């Protein structure tokens, strides 16, 4: 099972100059996972596209890498901004965590809301590493590329983020 997971191709970011609806949807999903609500995520993707359009690239591969990196950085900036304003929880997570009101079965699941709230409390770079690894299915190399850090740096961020999540989510509650 683990081997199968290892050999599976990790998801590839889209080419920013040719974002199809599927690509755009993918990018929005990544941003939703990183920053919370979809409207905000769409803004993040939007900003990223504009950034990418301003640059030249040697080839598509460079362009793809840059797109993911730019998207991550845009989301990181937003997370830091939220943090500085002490809006640690995104509107999305906050609404759901505090209201207890859910719109679908999973949302009704209290645990899911608590996990998302815990993720939202992580330091921005740890959050990105955890989100990309566990929700996006990225391998360490891709997380590193997205964050612009070394692979060991990415692994460290993911480990510390995960450890902090474990502390926030006592196993007996899981």
């Amino acid at each position: 099972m683990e081997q199968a997971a290892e050999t599976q191709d990790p998801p590839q970011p889209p080419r920013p100059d040719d974002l199809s609806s599927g690509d755009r949807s993918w990018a929005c999903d990544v941003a939703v996972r990183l920053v919370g609500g979809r409207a905000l995520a769409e803004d993040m993707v939007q900003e990223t596209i504009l950034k990418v359009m301003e640059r030249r690239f040697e080839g598509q591969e460079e362009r793809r890498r840059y797109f993911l990196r730019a998207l991550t950085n845009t989301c990181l900036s937003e997370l830091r901004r939220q943090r500085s304003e002490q809006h640690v929880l995104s509107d999305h997570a906050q609404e759901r965590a505090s209201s207890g009101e859910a719109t679908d079965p999973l949302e009704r699941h209290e645990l899911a809301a608590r996990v998302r709230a815990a993720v939202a409390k992580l330091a921005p770079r740890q959050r990105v590493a955890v989100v990309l690894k566990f929700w996006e299915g990225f391998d360490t190399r891709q997380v590193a590329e997205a964050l612009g850090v070394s692979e060991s740096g990415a692994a460290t961020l993911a480990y510390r983020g995960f450890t902090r999540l474990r502390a926030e989510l006592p196993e007996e509650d899981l």
Partner: protein
Amino acid sequence: MTESQDQASVCALFRAELWDYLDADLDAQRLAQIEVHLEACPECSAYLVEQVGIELERPEHGAVTRALVAADPVAAESPLRVPASSPVLPFNLNRVPKAALWIAAAALLLVLVRFGIYPTGRAPAGGPAMGRVPWDVERVLASMRAGPFEVNSATYSLARGPNPAEAEVLYSGRLRRVSVKSSPDAKPSVMVDQAGMRWAYDASAHSLVFGASPPTRPSPLDGPALAAYLQNGYDLSYAGPVDEQGVPCHHLTANSQSGDERLDLFINTATGLVHRSAQRIGNEAPLIQKLRRVNSDLAPDAFSPTSYLQSGATPAVDRGGLAAAGLSPVGVSNFLIGVDDKGQAALIQLSTTSWPSTILSLAPELLEHLANSETIFYTTTRERNFSFVPTSGYPSGAGAGEWAMDTKAGRYLVPAEKLRSLGGLEDLRQLFRSEYGLQIELEAGLAEPAWVLPEVLGIGVMSGNLLRFIASNNDLELEQDGNTFRFVRP
């Protein structure tokens, strides 16, 4: 001790302290030393990655991992879809709130009239003029011609919803002038097509058809026409309020598929001034350079697509039959205008990114105006994009964009070509089911497939508020069962 022994000793020390490092249980100085070592030592770096990978996959973390994966917010999102087992939506022309279409179109026209296009250059009573364009709505509407147009299956998506500036205006209770400076944080929106959507010329002399593909005939105008531009493989995308000064404006972009060239037109929503930038992406200049103001000699009041084209200041590519203009940031995202070889402008499409319900509720006076208009409302995606397309004269339902509507009969028609390309009616049903989460049934006795727009596309995309608004304006009651809405006569 040799250098390699030194290195081995450092690595051994690092590995002994690995978990203390990962848990940040070391003092800051030691943490920094280890980070320096990690940067310099690929073996230790790889070792750390490997160990973290093993650690995170340990069975005792399984519960946390599963909870984490299950909490994925994207997976938890619930799209607006009707379950496959939900009841079939009723179809009954008698219950169709056709007036809602008129209302929506008219309300939007009010926005146009109020914020930019005045038949005689005068502002509505009590309202200040933001810009004047010396051609009138009625003439534009009357200039529309029938298709047939080629059908394009491309749809597009929109990146964002109304910004605070829009909300400020739209929620004020009345449409009113918005100072440009009141929306300093207006962000651009970009609409990118999915499948190489093209501009194309229809059989008549004057218009461009949004969404038709591929161009069926060259531009009727002289010069290196837009058609040729497009035939070389251009995509189109649109962006909302941006310009080099940070002033809200509307922006039309044509990107080459090869990625090496792009054309930008910016229309200042307050003044109507047009900026143009055409640039090869492959050169050293930044892509978004300071825009060249090509018609700065035109007074705002004198602006129109026609005067723009006649000014002689515009490069040939702009003379290919395309002009585009935008409106204020109050709901109307953009409107698209074709220009014929006599300089006659024709309104092709209006699009708005705001909820029509908001616009409708703010412009009741347009109920009167709409009676003389023939405009359909449609949407191509489940996202926040709504379009209003004049359709007077469409004889058989072939029309602009992907779909069309016979407004007189109140029927939503699917061009035969589209039906064929889909492989028949069942495929079409499947399309609506998958795209809009709706099940549909045909009205008995119709010779060709026909649906009423609000009950097919509309319900899939509109907010409950809009549906309630439509119901209340048509003496109907709205029943809701989950995501299924039903208009009922009281």
